[in-house]
């Protein structure tokens, strides 16, 4: 027991300087899983660097939980490898993987006190009572829950249960931290607090972490990188900024933020980008990624805040009929219809005093900093 501990955890001796521990990368290599019919996880390859927090983001049923459960060892994948550091862990049962996991419903043991919950993993490792007590106190301090040691989970609020669940997972000094929708059951204000808390702990313990979520704002705010999943596959892996500004596929584009999709056709390919004639009447020159030939039908995706309104016509402005405008915070969202019948949303900064403008005709243009994305249109 002691030998394996030392082997897996060189830093065990220096418990109080957990930050000094070198975080280990987690690699998924071609991981595939099928529950019988179809693939819940389909050939996922992903490298989470040591100390990095990657968010798995995707719609319901895309395989996020399945992927997490494979890493934790609760289900064994049909195919592929899971590697921590440079060691494949597929042959290890869940109790030998040294992975901390926080469940959506926290899964605190209801028949144990907070202290017993936190000590559970240490007791399972055969740590002495003294070590257990010391670590429990330390973890309670870390999650700021001193004074709650003798409570039962049912006597705690959602946020407090969340903290205990984190303390319990971190008490075993895991190599990897897995979080399955950790904030789903919390209300909005508490969510932000807990996001900051988790980020702080993840930094402090230098943990390599994967967090599952289907809330894009959550992923944007705390993840170092985001993996957008769909139908068991990773559609795109990148920093929050990359995902938002340069979505690789139409799916990612539509899943993250809101955007206007305008149909068009590539007129010419020049050194400064593609010249695209929109069906709604404007011609834009776009320096977008991707490879398109002249004549190819495309979809241009523009975020609402990347468009502006003007009064006069111009070749790069498309005529729109304003229907409704809603003040949302500091922005004014115009709901408009383009000449081709497409619905467009345009967000402009709201001038003080001005609330909304009535319906009428106007011209929509790209904002100076705008970087629309181009996607091949489904051939129709």
């Amino acid at each position: 027991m002691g030998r394996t501990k030392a082997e897996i955890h060189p830093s065990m001796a220096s418990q109080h300087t957990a930050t000094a521990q070198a975080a280990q990368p987690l690699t998924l290599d071609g991981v595939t899983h099928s529950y019988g019919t179809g693939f819940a996880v389909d050939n996922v390859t992903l490298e989470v660097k040591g100390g990095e927090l990657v968010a798995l983001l995707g719609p319901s049923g895309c395989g996020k939980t399945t992927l997490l459960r494979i890493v934790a060892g609760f289900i064994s994948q049909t195919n592929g490898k899971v590697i921590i550091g440079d060691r494949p862990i597929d042959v290890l049962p869940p109790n030998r993987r040294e992975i901390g996991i926080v469940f959506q419903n926290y899964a605190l043991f209801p028949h144990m006190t907070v202290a017993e919950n936190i000590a559970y993993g240490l007791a399972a490792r055969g740590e002495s009572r003294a070590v257990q007590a010391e670590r429990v106190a330390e973890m309670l301090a870390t999650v700021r829950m001193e004074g709650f040691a003798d409570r039962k989970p049912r006597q705690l609020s959602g946020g407090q249960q969340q903290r205990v669940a984190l303390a319990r997972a971190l008490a075993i000094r895991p190599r990897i931290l897995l979080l399955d929708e950790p904030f789903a059951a919390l209300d909005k204000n508490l969510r932000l607090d807990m996001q900051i808390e988790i980020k702080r702990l993840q930094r402090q313990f230098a943990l390599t972490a994967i967090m599952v979520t289907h809330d894009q704002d959550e992923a944007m705010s705390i993840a170092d990188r985001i993996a957008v999943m769909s139908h068991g596959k990773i559609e795109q892996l990148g920093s929050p900024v990359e995902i938002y500004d340069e979505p690789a596929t139409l799916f990612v584009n539509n899943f993250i933020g809101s955007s206007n999709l305008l149909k068009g056709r590539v007129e010419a390919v020049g050194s400064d980008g593609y010249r695209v004639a929109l069906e709604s009447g404007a011609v834009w020159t776009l320096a977008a990624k991707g490879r398109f030939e002249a004549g190819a039908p495309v979809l241009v995706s523009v975020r609402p805040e990347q468009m502006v309104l003007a009064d006069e016509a111009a070749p790069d402005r498309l005529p729109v009929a304003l229907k409704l405008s809603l003040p949302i915070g500091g922005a004014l969202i115009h709901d408009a219809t383009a000449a081709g019948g497409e619905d467009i949303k345009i967000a402009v900064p709201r001038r003080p005093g001005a609330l909304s403008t009535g319906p009428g005709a106007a011209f929509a243009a790209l904002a100076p900093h705008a970087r629309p994305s181009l996607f091949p249109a489904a051939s129709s």
Partner: protein
Amino acid sequence: MSAAAAATGASPVRDAVEWRLAAPLGLTYVVFFAAPFLILLGISFYADAEQTRLGFDSWLKFYTDAFYLKVIFDTLKLGVFAVVATTILAYPLALVFRASSPRMQRVLIFIILMPLLTSVVIRTFAWIVILAREGVINQTLMGLGLTATPLNLLQTELGLVLALTQIEMPLMLLPLLAIMNQLDQNLIDASRALGASKWRTFFRVILPLTLPGWIAGATLVFASATTAFISQSVIGGARLVYLPALIWQQSMVVYNWPFAAVASLTLLFTVLSGIMALSWLGRFARTT
């Protein structure tokens, strides 16, 4: 607001109605349970079979005779054995049940409930066929060459426990399966991820959290095994005497009603003591 006020105003009336709803059953209990119980208690204080003289003679005779003390002990032991045997078989099955698909669970429930569809008498006689000297078990064992002479299973405690285990199994399984199915998988997974082995997870998480279901099942099994008159007398025969058979013999054969009353009350206390021991255990199972 007004609805709440109205509700509080109406509550005394409602309480009265609820109380009266319980009256028929309450009355039935008084007439058919409390009154006979008091009569039984009264009869037990007659000193002789003819019920001519009051005294503690029947109680003294019962509780000073080693034979009758052994009958109490054997009855208790039978109940404990039945509980232990059903527990050992039921927990693994409950874990399998938990892991099964919904369709498989329906099949299992059907198989588990099937014995309840036949009468205890029929099941008991079926066990005679199985346990007899020329029965299924002995023929199999002898066919396999494991024993040269047939084993004596009928009229033995082992045979009786075997039969009772099968007969009482549904009583243990139904409450256990119900609670096992409700157990949150995440708790088991959490335990495993925290480093606990499968056994440790069973004893630290699954067992404590399913204890209320087990206590319900164990109570039912204990109560029905200790009072299983038919199985006890058909399989146990004349060689094994338990309290129910003793009561029958004293009241219907010997006609010593005071003594039968003492035996009856003793059986009642025996069952009650088992149930109380189990509910005392249940205090450690306060899970939520």
